[in-house]
């Protein structure tokens, strides 16, 4: 019925994920239920061109679209490449250095040449104003509007493009921050002004400063970027809503994204996890590791009880020199192992990564001047990759160059054969990634062995079976179109707004009236944000959570709480939820000890209509003849085995393949080990049952 109403109107949902090398497009037609994909080279200097090319490849156009979903690395790259705006910080008198002091830790503890984080705002541009709010929200020293106005004028004179405002304890009383922001903005209408409470009302002033400064620093560039896309799409006839993917995997309106830019830092990786969540939902799994391996790194997220796990903080730019960002994010961890990771001999042992050959010069086998052996070279030498099948045969790989690099740099120094060296590189890479996956799940009190491994990205399907073996995972899923999976995932995103507010209170003394007031305010903000978009979601869902801990403990855990515990004012039930989560997460709990609430969290979701997962044509157990493309010698543990190769596009639902086998598609190859058994499911996903190790 809905389709009838919309027949004459645009019914297309476009999704564009811009990566360093490729721009991936997914197109969903709500009217016909059809899903198509496009892939084009990214165009770094004018990114909109890559998007347009991708949309054309997917056989669609802007004019027929009503929703345009977009994930981009522009925000994160602006920080990592330090190409943001000339930014100032305005803060409470006595505290302009908290941003430089940071948390004082020295992770590289034995290195006398250790480095500290480098602030995005130099000290000379960090200004103090007289004001002070105490931890209970009481104003000890009122803000002097004249002083702020004078400073605002000075910021303008200095040519400041963006200003971040942070006052101490504003999480309890944001009045000063809001007033200072308004004064600075009114004096400098063209300046990007951001106050910390708009992004986070959680305590920890360094983390909040870093968050609001990051937002201001990237603000002008992100704002311009989104504006360009809007304009470009509009010129091409687009009259729908542009929605941006946040680091939570949720969507927000372009207008909101232009102000709260820091929320889109990890939009691409988050969308992949959302895709995994949708896939799990379709095929009836509730626990999965979303594993995305590309050229330089591997990233993983966790789906538990059907939900992607999120976190309240992320560290940008490596742990040692990290700039923290304290906002809701998909809980994604990164390992410095990708297809381009370089292997080397150090102190008589074989090391892999984290240095990467990147796309230029790339692995030795690319023939672009790279002479160092990489993970990709090892895959080629072992026959896992076909020299003439890379990127659908568009790029011929040089196997001799790979062998030479492996022989000279690894095999000879260690007294190994080239095959042993290549096999060793892949084993080390697989174990390193497996340790990382185990580490994050342990942190959550989960056992990775109980999860399915959903692998995508160019290199994910190549290594998934080996990593699964190391972890003890029994099922691997290679989704349909793993090369454009993040764009696909965007189609399953919802509008989403996350809020948090710190307010320390003991559970036994907590006033439910106060709690309701805070939740009510946060929820109203979320509903208002949804109303401000042009999208009419199917329904709005509100979720509540609280950061809780035992009295005396420091680190809280975020406990999801059903609405009924608040309706019933059931303290005991809240405590029970907390005790249970604590037991799961840490293996211990203390039901007899009092607990306290540190912060209240709300997520307001505007649920969007989801594309139905499309089924592929059904076949028998044996793959169609056209699917079998030949045999290639590939090395598995002990010896080279003549291994059948299949063209994935030819496979039909219900086909079964026993390992060893190699399933090739445009941007990726799935490796099936001896003993593994693969089934093509009704949706075209490859479901691999891992054999014994």
């Amino acid at each position, binding site marked *: 019925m809905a389709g009838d109403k919309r027949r004459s109107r645009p019914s297309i949902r476009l999704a564009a994920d811009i990566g360093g090398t490729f721009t991936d497009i997914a197109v969903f037609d709500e009217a016909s239920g059809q899903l198509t994909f496009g892939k084009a080279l990214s165009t770094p200097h004018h990114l909109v061109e890559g998007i347009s090319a991708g949309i054309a490849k997917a056989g669609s156009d802007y004019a027929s679209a009503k929703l345009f979903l977009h994930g981009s690395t522009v925000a994160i790259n602006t920080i990592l490449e330090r190409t943001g705006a000339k930014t100032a910080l305005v803060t409470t008198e006595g505290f302009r250095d908290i941003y430089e002091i940071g948390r004082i830790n020295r992770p590289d503890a034995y290195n006398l040449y250790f480095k500290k984080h480098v602030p995005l705002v130099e*000290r000379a541009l960090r200004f103090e104003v007289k004001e002070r709010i105490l931890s209970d929200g009481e104003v000890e020293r009122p803000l002097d509007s004249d002083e702020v106005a004078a400073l605002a004028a000075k910021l303008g004179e200095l040519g400041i493009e963006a200003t971040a405002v942070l006052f101490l304890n504003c999480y309890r009383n944001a009045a000063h921050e809001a007033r200072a922001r308004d004064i600075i903005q009114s004096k400098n209408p063209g300046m990007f002004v951001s106050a910390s409470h708009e992004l986070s009302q959680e305590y920890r002033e360094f983390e909040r400063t870093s968050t609001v400064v990051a937002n201001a620093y990237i603000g002008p560039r992100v704002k311009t970027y989104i504006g360009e896309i809007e304009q470009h799409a509009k010129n091409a006839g687009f009259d729908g809503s542009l929605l941006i993917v946040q680091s939570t995997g949720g969507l927000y309106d372009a207008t909101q994204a232009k102000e709260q830019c820091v929320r889109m830092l990890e939009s691409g990786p988050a969308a992949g996890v959302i895709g995994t969540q949708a896939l799990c939902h379709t095929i009836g799994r509730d626990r999965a590791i979303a594993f995305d391996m590309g050229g330089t790194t591997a990233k993983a997220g966790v789906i538990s009880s059907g939900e992607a796990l999120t976190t309240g903080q992320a560290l940008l730019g490596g742990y040692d020199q990290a700039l923290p960002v304290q906002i809701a994010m998909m809980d994604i961890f990164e390992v410095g192992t990708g297809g381009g990771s370089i292997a080397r001999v150090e102190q008589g042992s074989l090391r892999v990564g984290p240095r990467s050959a990147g796309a230029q010069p790339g692995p030795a086998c690319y023939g672009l001047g790279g002479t160092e052996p990489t993970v990709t070279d090892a895959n080629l030498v072992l026959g896992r990759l076909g020299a003439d099948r890379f990127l659908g045969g568009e790029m011929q790989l040089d196997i001799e160059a790979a062998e030479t690099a492996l022989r000279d740099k690894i095999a000879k120094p260690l007294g190994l054969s080239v095959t042993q060296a290549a096999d060793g590189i892949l084993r080390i890479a697989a174990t390193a990634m497996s*340790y990382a996956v*185990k580490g994050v799940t*342990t942190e959550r009190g989960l056992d990775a062995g109980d999860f399915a491994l959903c692998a995508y990205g160019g290199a994910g399907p190549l290594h998934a079976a080996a990593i699964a073996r190391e972890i003890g995972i029994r099922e691997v899923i290679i989704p349909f179109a793993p090369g454009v999976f993040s764009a696909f995932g965007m189609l399953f995103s919802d509008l989403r707004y996350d809020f948090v507010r710190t307010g320390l209170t003991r559970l036994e003394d907590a006033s439910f009236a106060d709690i309701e007031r805070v939740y009510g305010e946060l929820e109203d903000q979320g509903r208002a944000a949804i109303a401000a978009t042009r999208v009419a979601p199917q329904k709005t869902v509100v979720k509540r959570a609280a950061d809780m801990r035992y009295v*005396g403990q420091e680190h809280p855990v975020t406990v999801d709480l059903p609405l009924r515990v608040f309706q019933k004012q059931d303290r005991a039930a809240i405590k029970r939820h907390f005790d249970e989560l604590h037991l799961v997460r840490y293996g211990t709990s203390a039901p007899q000890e009092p607990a306290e609430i540190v912060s209240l969290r709300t997520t307001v979701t505007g649920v969007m209509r989801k594309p139905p997962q499309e089924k592929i044509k059904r076949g028998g157990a044996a793959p169609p003849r056209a699917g079998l493309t030949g045999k290639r010698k590939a090395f598995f543990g002990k010896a080279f085995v003549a291994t059948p190769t299949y063209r994935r596009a030819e496979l039909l639902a219900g086909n079964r393949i026993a390992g060893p086998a190699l399933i090739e598609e445009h941007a990726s190859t799935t490796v099936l080990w001896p003993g593994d058994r693969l089934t093509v499911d009704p949706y075209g996903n490859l479901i691999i049952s891992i054999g014994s190790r």
Partner: protein
Amino acid sequence: MAKKQSKTARAASKPAKQRHKVDPILTEIVRNGVIAVTEEMKTNLMRTAYNMIIYEALDFTTGLFTAEGDTVSIGIGLPSFTRGMSNTVKSMVAHFGRDGIKPGDIYVTNDAYTTGSHLNHFTFALPIFHGGELAGFACCMAHWIDVGGTLGGMTTDIFSEGLQIPIVKYQDRGVVNDTLVDIIRLNVRLPSRAMGDLRAQVTAVKTGERRFLQLLDRYGRKPVLDAIKTIMDQADAAARARTRTIPDGTYEAESFMDDDGIDIGKRVPIRVKVIVKGDTMTIDLSDISRQVRGFYNSGPSTSIGCAQMAYKCITSPTDYPINDGAFRSLKVIVPKGTIVSAVRPAPMRWWMTYPMTVVDTVYKALAPAIPDRVIAGHHADLVTATIHGINPRTREFFIGGLGPLGGGWGGKLTEDGVSATVCANDGDTHNSPNEQAEAKLPIVIESCRLIEDSCGAGRHRGGLGIESVVRARSHLTVNTQTDRAHCHPWGLEGGLEATGNQVHFRVDGQWKTDQPNAKTLITHLKAGDAFRLRSGGGGGYGDPLERPIEAVQSDVRQGYVSVEAAAKLYAVVIDPETFAVDRAATETLRSTRRRERGGEPSAAASA
């Protein structure tokens, strides 16, 4: 005198011969594996811990050890404790004997003379059995916030510092020793936190056991243990290779601590002698001060610990895992009864302060030999305050630490020193956020800022120290135990010294700055009174007159260095309004300075 004492010596042993077949691939898998095991132990401890010192300050270490107690891998959290856990495990092995060690056992101790540190450091160790064989130990040390003893003030023997648990079984073949737990509960002020931390530590060692067993199951016990031997041999070879690049010779240096908190103003000498010969190094601490009356002593494990820390920083700073192979080429000589090898009943509560200066003094000694690998003196103190009282809001007793503050680090041959970073004793240790401290404790933090001109001048200047002003909102009692207020962080190669650490009080609106040192024990404050912690900067490296003018100008523009200091120390003349450099005046001033000192750059060092 010292020469007559019996000596605790760790001999530098011969390089290991290849005793087993080396599989380079499995070696790397096991290397990553043991690091992952210790990291996972750390994660579990940190997340489960009850007190801020463990969770926020990360004052703990986890590790895996061989069946003999040698370090296979330890977390990099607490460098001064490099030796503590291994020696504790070895003491446990000696105590129970190999035959007395059973599956299902977990051992515990907080004995200060075993761990080398204070009674707050509870160490748990779990013997890991695989196929009936002892394959190693999982061990974890963490700082408990209270272990009884006198609250605040000075202690003069170990007995006033709290409950002492000798090496005992917390768990005997799977059965928890409830008697021990009851004794602990009754002897600490915050038993629920102590029990929370105890559970966290047990979880950590069990995690270590489970993950190490998985590694042994996956690759086989012998291959994994052989790989561990290889890893240690490789660490040995790497350390020796780096040591060989240090010119042979005997290098000496001396420095001082302010006092021991009892004999006020009586300097405590730190004398080190470093002998480099071929691929071995000997650090001789024979002439270091005898143990002192105040609580700044540490045990023999710490003398070796700080020597090993200095050695690792110089020879293999970023090689992981941290393991005992890297220390085979180091010999440490130290007689019993010094400040870093104290004997019972020496008080040890503030064990961590002096060893940091011992480490810095080793760098000072080696500066002429390896100028590119050493660092000028740093603030070398936690610069922390402990406060306690009754919280008017909850009417409950509270005890809380502020800090560590972090301070300046020394300049190096090629780089400026780093500002606002935790002292050498600690590694991945965090400060407590001001907002968090204000939410928890009845205090207002009036300011927290870098201190202009706290850095030692040099071609590469030191880092800056921090000042924090803390006001009481109700009656509370403050303790500070800070040293190096008078003995400032030194410069190297002509670099100047930095400012020292300071502690001051504001009573009835008046700052009092006449304390004899920065050790202000049991100071009672009322609402509105305040205290001020200032950490020292880092010493400078090289002649300040050689610092590029642009670098001085930038420092002045950023407010790290004042216009006055730019002129006085660097001979750079800068306009205070525009920050423009008066080139002509600067050239004149610099040449005048050079002439005055007679072309001898190092004259600047004796400022």
